[in-house]
């Protein structure tokens, strides 16, 4: 079965410093990877997904199939980045009915 691992439950970073949130997955096929973000008392929203290769709010993530990782990065953290971040995986060609989430990382940006 597929699995998503986010090793850091909590991460604190100073404003202006680089941010990296780790995500590793286990699946033998070709998954689709996503990052979702949840700001305080708001609903989850899609931040980015690997297939679109976009940069959203300064965040990027590259799928590394060799290392089975999809780490989220931002070169300069901003206070509004404080939130809960979830990495998620779905199976290729299966549709999102099999979306699997990691346990999440709470990011706190220190002013």
């Amino acid at each position, binding site marked *: 079965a597929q699995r998503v691992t986010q090793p850091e439950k909590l991460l604190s970073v100073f404003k202006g410093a680089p941010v990296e949130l780790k995500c590793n997955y286990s699946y033998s096929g070709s998954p689709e990877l996503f990052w979702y973000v949840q700001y305080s008392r708001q609903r989850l929203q899609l931040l980015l997904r690997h297939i679109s290769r976009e940069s959203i709010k300064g965040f990027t993530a590259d799928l590394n199939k060799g290392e089975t990782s999809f780490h989220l990065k931002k070169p300069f953290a901003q206070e509004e980045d404080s939130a809960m971040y979830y990495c998620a995986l779905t199976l290729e060609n299966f549709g999102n009915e099999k979306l699997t989430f*990691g346990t999440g990382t709470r990011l706190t940006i220190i002013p």
Partner: protein
Amino acid sequence: DAGITQSPRHKVTETGTPVTLRCHQTENHRYMYWYRQDPGHGLRLIHYSYGVKDTDKGEVSDGYSVSRSKTEDFLLTLESATSSQTSVYFCAISESTTSGGQETQYFGPGTRLLVL
């Protein structure tokens, strides 16, 4: 917000009572999902639906049932609530991308359920 609402937004109930949560969407999306969010577990899929009267179990379906009698509504029922079902429940829908690629899930605002 992709036209997704959940009701109620907050509920306190007692162990052993039945509880029904409602998810409503306004945009005729085919797929609808129920997740629960718990610290240390992230989001876990309870049940999902791929059409009217078509549902299937997710990862943590024990103690929950669902129904979808019309496209816009997806109901989650706890037949006899237990304290372990205290959680935040999120509904989600799937929307196909304009490029015809993989679908993206959009989430409702959540329902906070406390079972005493």
